[in-house]
């Protein structure tokens, strides 16, 4: 039993080595395929970051009538937080709103002057509300229409922004859907390319398989070394891919971060290095092993 195991490994390694060119081309194609998969993975991470960034930009604000007591506003805030659609609520008091306004327009002397001349704060306190998903704002706006809130609220800016929010939310879902579709399509193509390469590799060895059968080898006796080779294909190509990606990600990251501030792609890559490697390893080995087993099947029928 142990001898058989040793034989399978030895012969598997030996075949891999002796079919040098064949192994090298197969591994190269698999590196390309795994790079594709890893690239898609990174792009979808990036897309998700961008989409979330976009989603975070969307909020609606409720403005409260002047002189509304702070506890009343905080009560509304708590009620909002209890709603399942609401992700976060930020309270901006009248003073805070004024400070913010001044800060934003500090370069503009006219505005500063006007503000000087006013003796009362013209700005209203507000709650900035973010939803868990962009299509939930309608429900939140509806919630704020309740009779009990009417005396407090001066305006909800949902209705003016309704169209923009809807458009943004449809853009977001379009990005997600197209992303998913492209990822799936390219993954399927990559997998087919990998399987076909392995099929060709095995095709060149079909006479060997036939001879082994005619000499009396059982199917598993023949498959064993091919299994080992399949694992080797996966192991080597996954490792090569992740190693090649490291400097690429390092060099690419600054440009990506320029385009999509805060995406921190390289950091993500570094943090998840092991996980990504394991994913590639799994893909590579599954492709290598299943590819070989499927390809060898018809040559064993003799």
């Amino acid at each position, binding site marked *: 039993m142990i*001898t058989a195991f040793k034989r399978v490994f030895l012969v598997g390694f030996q075949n891999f080595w002796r079919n040098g060119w064949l192994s090298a081309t197969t591994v190269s194609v698999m590196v390309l395929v795994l790079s594709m998969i890893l690239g898609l993975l990174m792009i979808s991470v990036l897309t998700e970051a961008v989409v979330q960034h976009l989603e975070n930009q969307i909020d609606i604000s409720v403005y409260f009538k002047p002189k509304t007591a702070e506890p009343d506003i905080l009560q509304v805030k708590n009620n909002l937080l209890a709603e399942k659609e609401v992700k976060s609520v930020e309270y901006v008091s009248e003073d805070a709103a004024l400070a913010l306004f001044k800060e934003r327009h500090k370069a503009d002397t006219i505005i500063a002057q006007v503000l000087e001349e006013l003796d009362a704060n013209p700005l209203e306190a507000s709650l900035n509300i973010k939803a868990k998903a962009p299509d939930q704002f309608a429900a939140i706006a509806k919630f704020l229409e309740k009779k009990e809130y009417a005396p407090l609220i001066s305006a909800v800016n949902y209705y003016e922004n309704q169209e923009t929010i809807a458009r943004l939310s449809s853009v977001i879902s379009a990005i997600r859907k197209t992303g998913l579709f492209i990822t799936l399509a390219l993954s399927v193509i990559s997998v087919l390319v990998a399987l076909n390469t392995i099929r060709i590799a095995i095709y060149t060895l079909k006479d*060997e398989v036939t001879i*082994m059968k*005619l*000499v*009396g080898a*059982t199917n598993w006796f023949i498959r064993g070394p091919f299994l080992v080779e399949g694992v080797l294909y996966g192991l080597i190509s996954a490792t090569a891919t992740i190693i090649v990606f490291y400097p690429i990600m390092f060099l690419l990251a600054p440009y990506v971060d320029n385009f999509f501030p805060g995406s921190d792609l390289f950091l993500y890559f570094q943090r998840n290095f092991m996980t990504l490697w394991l994913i590639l390893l799994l893909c590579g080995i599954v492709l290598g092993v299943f590819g070989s087993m499927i390809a060898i099947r018809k040559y064993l029928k003799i």
Partner: protein
Amino acid sequence: MILFDKISKAYNGHFALENITLNIEQGEFVSIVGQSGAGKSTLLKLLIAEEKPTSGRIFLDKQDVTALPYAELPFLRRRIGTIFQDFKLLSQKTAYENIAFAMEVVGKSKKEIQEDVPQVLQLVGLEEKAKQFPNQLSGGEQQRVAIARALVHQPDIIIADEPTGNLDPLNTWDVIRLLLKINELGTTILLATHDREIINTLNKRVVSIDKGKVIRDEQNGRYIL
């Protein structure tokens, strides 16, 4: 031991073998002769189930070879050592490994393999070429590796399809003497050849095939076509 029972084999409607019935006893040395294309190789291929007959059945010790499922075929083939007309050596393996492969297949231990393979290599005069790959060997050397592989695991039956086709006269007689000796030890031998000299010297059973039919089958036969 071996019974071909009304065997016919057609390739694309053309009969390579027609209604062959042949009984071979254990320990026999049977030569199958016939012109090129007569159907000798086809007959031998049917015995190891490399090809399936169009009709008829083949029995090996009461077991119907033609009805065996794929999973059983390896065990049938292990009982038969085949010297293929086209050698069928594994191109990825050295001479030594090709011969060792036949022993690994039947589950021989590493020790047995290390003892027997060099012996057999010596028997066919290739002890110096053990580490060479088939494409680094001459035609005759390849043929001798094929011979060594067929007999190294001591099968019950040896099928020798034109085993001396690429050998010089000296080597040819070495191989024939080897086959005779193995036969004396009890192994059944099926030899396909169109070498008149061999047949006439052997003085064993000769089955003559012409255009897929047995035209003569005689003990102590001679080569007549």
